[in-house]
């Protein structure tokens, strides 16, 4: 296949943003400074469910140095925001739905004055009965958080005859799994600055989706989209937690009202309190197989709590339902799921959109099934693995880019090499996952603009926010490959809504695939003109031309050639410009409202982790020793960057399994800071063996698929299963803290 003959891709490069980051020059939002800048703060509710009886900011306003206080009455446009459903107020108008709802804004001359002003604000509430659990939310006559029902979403997916299939099974495994609320703990707290100039409101923000932010700010301000500019600043981690609006609308309101630049930098606590969390889930599963290990039926019921607002809840429930049987060919599937609103912290996107949670369930089931059948866990998975041509529960037939079996074999081979002995109190566990790249059955386009300049350097403009994962580097490499130029020839401008076209969210592992395709299409368009001009000059049909290594030559006779410099001189001579605008929208279909039949994703990534752990049976402490993780990424654009995703994902998986849990009581988070919410440190890191499996298809740019979330997911069930296997006991709830592990050991 010609597309395998790559000049640029599949090697390792220094990321576009890395140099400025190692010399300390990179500007994050909190680093910005403007003349006459004010500092903003947000007055937030301390109760989970209430109507505001009285709000009084007169003492705050009397404080010298306080410029303005704003409430919902001061919003010039609409007062509802939200990624999928517009259900969250910019500033509370009707009622408070969670601890931390924004009630009023202040702008003052210094951050300290803003803080002082917030302390002087007074509020009185008429408390409403709060709702904190699924059972409370669904109880008849329960207080309603939005509208007339607390049911946020209900999904049903069915294929085949599940009941008949269970009747034919030789073995049935049942289990109910619980995963808890987690928080992203990106190291940079949310921050931004807004200013108004020549009728344009510009917001500089830490964000994963500048183009979404623009729309929300414009609606809040009652302005057309082209009067709002959102510029993504270097963003210190996101993992899904910077997809919701954080400071953007508040900043625009304050800058507009004061006529001065305004900065808001959230404290760690404020950031954790109000940014979206990982949905806690309860998953009840029944898995049936023949005595040979062939899966016949899977039934799952999933409960999720989206908290006070929907955020990405609708995406999380659909992803969880589509993926919860795992990366297996299961002929009979029935899944039901309910997500509810409560007065708990808002849950939304967090690396994996529900797939990490359901991986605990389907891999817990597979681990138990392998034991029940006394089968090798990898062989059991190979027997049931999805392959090209497998028909999914949604009815979709998989294309050729299904590298699951390759990943299973690669992981097994490496594990045999690096895990040679398993001592007492040690265990080996396997975890697998599949992950649809992009949004679930929804349009999610992205675009790119490209111009090849007279000296054959290139300006590439993409809406895609680079949050450190390296998307700008990926786009540059794809452009260099397509145009036949070098990586250094490409300059990327990203996520600035006055310059770049729609990029959609840097989420759902979609940017390499979608913005990458858009970039390639834009480059092909620019290449059309370039090729025609070269064909005229070289007197060969343009179809014969190859662009590679900054040269253009004939595939029939490589001696017929010209340099890019010569080509650009020809372009100038004939008044031709090498420009391209590409857009790509994945080929998916909406899912049927009743059965969820349809094409939820164009491609799927696969991952397999094999973990070796050791449990200290006197303390319950789990030590992750080795993680072998193989990932089918289609085509690696940059190998070191793929490895970096896998290593980062594996360590995040350790946190998920062993330490992390948001403790909340009556809607209030009790551990919003690093000293109470522990994430893995250098002392926890195991030996990680990342393996890149390439199983390219026609859909992605040069066959590439996403890896950002897949890098995390299989590590979670692998570590969990390794602990189970070390102790010979099953675990149904994460995290496996020393206390929980000791309970099992002593039980």
């Amino acid at each position, binding site marked *: 296949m010609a597309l395998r003959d790559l000049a640029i891709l599949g090697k390792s490069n220094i990321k576009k943003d890395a140099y400025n980051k190692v010399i300390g020059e990179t500007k994050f939002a909190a680093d910005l400074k403007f003349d006459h800048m004010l500092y903003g703060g947000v007055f937030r509710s301390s109760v989970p469910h209430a109507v505001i009886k009285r709000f009084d900011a007169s003492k705050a306003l009397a404080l010298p140095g306080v410029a303005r206080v704003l409430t919902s009455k001061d919003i010039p446009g609409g007062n509802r925001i939200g990624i999928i459903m517009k259900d969250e107020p910019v500033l509370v108008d009707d009622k408070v739905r969670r601890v931390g709802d924004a009630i009023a804004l202040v702008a003052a001359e210094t951050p300290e004055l803003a803080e002082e002003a917030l302390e002087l604000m007074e509020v009185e509430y008429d408390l409403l009965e709060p709702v904190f659990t699924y059972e409370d939310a669904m109880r008849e006559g329960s207080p309603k958080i939005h509208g007339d029902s607390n049911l946020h979403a209900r999904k049903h997916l069915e294929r085949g005859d599940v009941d008949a299939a269970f009747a034919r099974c030789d073995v049935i495994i049942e289990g109910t799994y619980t995963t808890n609320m987690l928080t992203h703990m990106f*190291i940079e707290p949310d921050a931004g600055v807004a200013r108004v100039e020549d009728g344009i409101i510009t917001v500089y923000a830490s964000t994963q989706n500048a183009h979404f932010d623009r729309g929300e700010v414009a609606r809040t301000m009652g302005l057309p989209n082209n009067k709002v500019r959102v510029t993504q600043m270097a963003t210190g981690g996101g993992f899904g937690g910077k997809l919701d609006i954080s400071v953007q609308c508040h900043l625009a309101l304050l800058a507009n009202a004061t006529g001065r630049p305004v900065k808001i930098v959230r404290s760690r606590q404020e950031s954790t309190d109000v940014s979206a969390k990982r949905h806690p889930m309860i998953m009840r599963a029944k898995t049936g197989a023949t005595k040979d290990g062939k899966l016949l039926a899977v039934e799952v019921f999933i409960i999720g709590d989206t908290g006070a607002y929907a955020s990405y809840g609708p995406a999380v429930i659909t992803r969880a339902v589509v993926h919860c049987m795992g990366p297996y060919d299961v002929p009979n599937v029935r899944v039901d799921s309910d997500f509810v609103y409560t007065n708990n912290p808002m849950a939304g996107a967090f690396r994996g959109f529900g797939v990490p949670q359901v991986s605990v369930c389907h891999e817990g089931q597979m681990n138990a099934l392998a034991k029940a059948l006394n089968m090798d866990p990898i062989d059991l998975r190979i027997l049931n693995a999805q392959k090209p041509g497998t028909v999914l529960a949604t009815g979709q037939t998989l294309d050729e880019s299904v590298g699951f079996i390759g990943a299973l074999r690669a992981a097994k081979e490496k594990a045999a090499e690096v895990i040679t002995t398993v001592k007492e109190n040690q265990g080996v566990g396997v975890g697998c996952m599949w992950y649809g790249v992009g949004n679930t059955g929804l349009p999610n386009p992205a675009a790119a603009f490209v111009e090849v300049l007279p000296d054959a350097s290139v300006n590439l403009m993409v809406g895609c926010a680079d949050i450190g994962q390296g998307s700008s580097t990926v786009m540059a490499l794809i452009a260099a490959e397509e145009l036949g130029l070098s990586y250094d020839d490409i300059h990327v401008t990203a996520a600035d809504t006055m310059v770049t076209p729609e990029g959609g969210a840097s989420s759902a592992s979609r940017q390499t695939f979608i913005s990458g395709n858009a970039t390639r299409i834009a480059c092909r368009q620019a290449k059309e003109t370039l090729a025609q001009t070269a064909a005229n000059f070289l007197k060969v049909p343009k179809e014969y031309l190859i662009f590679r290594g900054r040269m253009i030559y004939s595939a029939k006779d490589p001696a017929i050639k010209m340099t890019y410099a010569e080509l650009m001189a020809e372009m100038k001579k004939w008044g031709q410009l090498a420009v391209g605008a590409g857009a790509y929208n994945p080929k998916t279909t909406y899912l049927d409202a009743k059965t969820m039949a349809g094409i939820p994703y164009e491609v799927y990534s696969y991952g397999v982790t094999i973990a070796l752990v050791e449990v200290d049976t006197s303390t319950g402490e789990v030590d992750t020793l080795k993680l072998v993780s193989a990932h089918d990424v289609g085509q690696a654009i940059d190998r070191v960057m793929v490895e970096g995703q896998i290593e980062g994902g594996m360590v995040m998986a350790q946190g998920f399994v062993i330490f992390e849990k948001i403790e909340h009581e009556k809607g209030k988070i009790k551990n919003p800071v*690093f000293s109470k919410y522990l994430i893995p440190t250098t002392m926890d890191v195991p030996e990680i063996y990342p393996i890149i499996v390439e199983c390219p298809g026609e859909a992605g740019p040069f066959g590439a698929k996403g890896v950002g979330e897949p890098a995390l997911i299989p590590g979670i069930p692998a570590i969990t299963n390794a602990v189970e296997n070390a102790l010979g006991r099953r675990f149904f709830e994460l995290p496996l803290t020393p206390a929980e592990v000791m309970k099992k050991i002593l039980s």
Partner: protein
Amino acid sequence: MDKIKINFTLNGAPVTAETYPNKRVVDLLREDCECTSVKEGCGEGECGACTILVNDIPVTSCLMLAGQIEGDSILTLEGLAKDGELDKLQAAFLEAGAVQCGYCTPGMILSAKALLLRNPHPTREEIRRALSGNLCRCTGYTKIFRAVDMAAGN
């Protein structure tokens, strides 16, 4: 409270700052000295993003007050490259792919610098310990370890 005058060396140059004695060093460096490479991630000395070197010792500058650095020599990431030439650690962070979002990078490089100043060829265990106060949520630390190894010529 009255402002005081404090004298210290910042990235090799003498500085006199007029500031409140209880101003946090992270704020002094960021607001008054243009050293915005010093990042704040938590404000409680837990994440290490605000790490600077004070007389070659790594310190979380969110827990230090301006009055405490009188006469000290302060190094921030802005001062690490000499005459445009990257420090070995900076070059190794680039080469190893140890930078993702970059928010922990300044503190991480400076903690590693302090380690290499006192121990030019640290073991992996010594690297882990030296960086254990610097949190990173992106990289899984593995390429950071490799970068320190590379810079140390291990």
